[in-house]
C-alpha cells in the first residue's frame, strides 16, 4: 500500500478483555516501531523490530503487552487483560532502514477500555 495501515482505527473494549492491534508497514521497510500516545502526552516507545533481528521490547510497560512481526511484514500488538490505563492511541511506524530520521506513521488505533 501507499502508507502505513493500522486496524482497527477505533476499539472500545471492556476491562479484562484481550485486544489485538494490527499494523501493515510500507512494503520494503525493514524497521517497524510501536508507540503509545496518551491524551495530551508525547509518544511512548513500546517496541522496535528490525528485519529478522531480535526485537527491542524494552518499552513494553508490562507482561500483558506483546508484539510479533513476521519478517518484514505485518505486525500485531496484543494487550491481554486490558486495564483502563491502557486507553490511548497506539501508533505504528515503519522506516526504510535504521537512522534515516523519517518514520512513516499510520493513523493509529484508538483504544478505549471501559
Amino acid at each position, binding site marked *: 500500500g501507499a502508507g*502505513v495501515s493500522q486496524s482497527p482505527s477505533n476499539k472500545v473494549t471492556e476491562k479484562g478483555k484481550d485486544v489485538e492491534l494490527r499494523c501493515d508497514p510500507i512494503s520494503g521497510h525493514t*524497521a517497524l*516501531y510501536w*508507540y503509545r500516545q496518551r491524551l*495530551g*502526552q*508525547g*509518544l511512548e*516507545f513500546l517496541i*522496535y523490530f*528490525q528485519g529478522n533481528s531480535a526485537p*527491542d521490547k524494552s518499552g513494553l510497560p508490562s507482561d500483558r503487552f506483546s508484539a510479533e512481526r513476521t519478517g518484514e511484514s505485518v505486525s500485531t500488538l496484543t494487550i491481554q487483560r486490558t486495564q483502563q490505563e491502557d486507553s490511548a492511541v497506539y*501508533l505504528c*511506524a515503519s522506516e526504510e532502514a*535504521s*537512522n534515516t*530520521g*523519517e*518514520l512513516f*506513521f*499510520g*493513523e*493509529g488505533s484508538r483504544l478505549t477500555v471501559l
Partner: protein
Amino acid sequence: QKEVEQDPGPLSVPEGAIVSLNCTYSNSAFQYFMWYRQYSRKGPELLMYTYSSGNKEDGRFTAQVDKSSKYISLFIRDSQPSDSATYLCAIAGTYKYIFGTGTRLKVLA
C-alpha cells in the same frame, strides 16, 4: 529528568506571526534531531531532519540545533492557519527515537 523536554503549550498566534518552538534534551549521545507535525487524529509526519549544529531551512520552516546547549528549535515564518497542529521534537542516537510531549499550535485567521 526526561530525556527530552518540550513546552506543551497551547500556543495561539495570529496569522503571519513568527512562531518559535523549542526543546531541550539531556543526553549528548543523541546525534539526530527531527521535528514532526501531527494534525488532529492523524499520525505524525516528518517536517525537518538535521544532524548537525546550526540552521537548516526549508521554505517557511527553519530548524536550529545547538549541541553545546542541548537545545533545538523550530521557527515558522509567516504562519498560516493550516500550520495549526501539534509539533513534536524528536532525538535519536542509534535506532531509538525519543519524542517530546509536543506543542499544540493554533494559528488564528
